[in-house]
């Protein structure tokens, strides 16, 4: 442990921001690329959009971990969320067309379903003291199996038919603002929801008593216990919240911004749950930082896509690795994120 232990969220965020600029600038200069073609408003918009599911899951995950439970099963819960949302929207619409109302219902149900599933997970990890890493991996395995399986039961194949997604909302005048207008005021309401949830998560964590309890539960559960607050109740709440948020992230992916559920291979979630974990660690457990890190991933992904579009001569199978390599580079450079002291330790008051 070193001085970086005290790297505060601001520093991390600034560091990450600088790094992105540096990488983008560096690549652009090196390859003598026209910056205008590389950094388009559309790419920025897509980066924001790509950040949404990651940020949502990350915020849930960081609450759980802040309170002492490492929910490594985010990826699995996202799969369940993606499936539940698509299934609900498609079943609710019956033979008819899927309307916006069906979609929102789907999103709501996905959140509820995942919250329910996480109750089981929370019971196993908190009450029955399951190993958190393995239980989380198991959730992933279970989701990879039962997710597509349920799809087969519903649709006769591992993927849903194509579904519409949530309409963008254009705010009349504000949308005319040059860049920002298109980015924020002519976009999916889910982006606003995510921005709102990010801010709310920050306020709750750092400005309300529940936030204090969450922090205490992960850092020194006994202190919280002796202050008369039930540690495990706090942990149940955060873990269930993390499942609900991952479910929301999955729902956003399948019918919020996507076009239904794809269940082949590692499913359409395709590692975003893992990235979400990385995102909140990057963000040093700060919801705003986590959103920033999710945005970084979105940006790295769009960067590699933009590079392909512009036609630079790197094989696709290599540029796709950009986000992962970026994680390693940033981790090596910015390094340490301080884990809450009691993560992974089940808490018991009295035997």
């Amino acid at each position, binding site marked *: 442990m070193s001085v970086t232990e005290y790297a505060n969220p601001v520093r991390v965020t600034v560091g990450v921001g600088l790094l992105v600029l540096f990488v983008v600038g560096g690549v652009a200069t090196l390859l003598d690329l026209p910056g205008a073609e590389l950094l388009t408003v559309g790419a920025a918009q897509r980066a924001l959009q790509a950040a949404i599911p990651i940020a949502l899951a990350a915020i849930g995950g960081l609450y759980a971990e802040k309170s002492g439970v490492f929910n490594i099963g985010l990826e699995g819960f996202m799969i369940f969320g993606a499936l539940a949302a698509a299934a609900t929207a498609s079943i609710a619409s019956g033979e008819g067309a899927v309307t916006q109302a069906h979609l929102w219902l789907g999103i709501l149900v996905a959140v509820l379903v995942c919250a329910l599933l996480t109750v089981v997970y929370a019971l196993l990890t908190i009450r029955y003291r399951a190993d958190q890493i393995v239980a989380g991996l198991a959730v992933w395995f279970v989701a990879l199996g039962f997710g597509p399986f349920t799809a087969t039961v519903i649709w006769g194949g591992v993927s849903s038919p194509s579904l519409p997604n949530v309409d963008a909302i254009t705010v009349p005048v504000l949308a005319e603002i040059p860049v920002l207008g298109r980015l924020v005021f002519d976009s999916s309401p889910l982006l606003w929801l995510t921005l709102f949830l990010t801010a709310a998560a920050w306020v709750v964590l750092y400005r309300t008593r529940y936030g204090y309890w969450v922090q205490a539960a992960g850092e020194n559960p006994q202190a919280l216990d002796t202050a008369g607050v039930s540690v495990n109740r706090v942990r149940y709440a955060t873990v269930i919240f993390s499942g609900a948020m991952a479910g929301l992230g999955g729902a956003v*992916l399948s019918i919020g911004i996507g*076009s239904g559920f*794809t269940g082949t291979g590692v499913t359409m979630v395709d590692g975003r749950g893992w990235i979400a974990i990385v995102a909140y660690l990057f963000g040093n457990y700060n919801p705003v930082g986590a959103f920033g890190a999710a945005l970084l991933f979105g940006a790295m992904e769009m960067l590699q896509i933009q590079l392909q579009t512009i036609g630079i001569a790197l094989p696709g*199978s290599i540029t796709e690795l950009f986000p992962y390599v970026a994680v390693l580079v940033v981790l090596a450079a910015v390094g340490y994120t301080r884990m809450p002291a009691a993560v992974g330790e089940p808490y018991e008051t009295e035997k």
Partner: protein
Amino acid sequence: LTDDGDGGDGGDGNGDGGDGTAGDGTGTGDGTSTGDGGSGGTTNIAIVSSPAGFGDRAFNDLALEGLQNAAEEYDIELQQVEETDQSQYGTVQSRLAESQNPDYDLIVLVSYNHTQALQTNAEEYPDQRWMLINAHVEQPNVAGYTWANHEMSFQAGVLAGTMTTRELSHEGNTLNPDNATIGFVGGVDGALINAFERSYVAGAEWVNEDVDVRVGYIGNYTDTQTANNIASSQYDAGADIVYHAAAAAGQGVFQAAQDAQRFAVGVDADQSVTLPDYQDVIMGSAVKYINRGTAEVAQAVVEDNWESVQGPNVLGLEEDAVEVVLGQAVGPKLPDVVTQNLEESKQAIVGGDITVPCTAGGCQD
């Protein structure tokens, strides 16, 4: 005939030991198995998926569909085996070949991922008939079927190259006639999909030498979101038509087309039919009739006519096994020049006047 018997015995030597102990009177079944189809009993067919699995809305589903069609016509019992782990193919193949209950008359293997394993197993189980899709193994009991991806992609390029400088408007979706920019979204950046890409580019250039093609790869065949992002990026960069070769993930391309109010070209099946929600943006699809291929082999086995399908079969424009079909909704609005160009290039390819880059199997460099 003697030859055949020897080979059979030798090959069965190991396998039969196990089977004998497993019992259930397979002795007779074994002897007659190869002739089963002809003698009017039920024909048993197994189909093993590629790593993409069934439900890919691409060749796994198409191959299956062909067999299902055949099963409606003939007395065929179909066993669907989904295996997404390539290292299991050797085992799955031999387990199926050794199976006595049922004794499979034909095992269909989807995609080249099976090639290496089949090289061993085709020899190991000489009495077993195999159909391999998208590759071939030189053995008397193997029917290799490859569709000319490159030829149909060339045609897709002709379609896109023709239209990018023309006007079109359909339900609010338009083309920009002022520039000649089109896009391509591939699944995995490898030899197979590279053939789609390069032939597509060649096709577009055949129409318009100055055409600018934006290319992007997803890295897999499942991530619709990334497909969408790549296509959007290309539409941003001025592309007005994007062709995809990304199986299930390709949906993302259509979605991006709808958002950008541009057009796209589908792949494998007529996607304006299979994905009616995207009819309004699907200008056409590069289609290969894998279903006809599997149905053909199934029929040959039922009718005991193996020789007609055995060996390598490359099916291209000439055989009418691949083509570009125009979209259900958009197609009627396309100018005649499209059909003319498609027909002209088809004749030139069949006649050898155009050399399409790469081969049915992929690009070899």
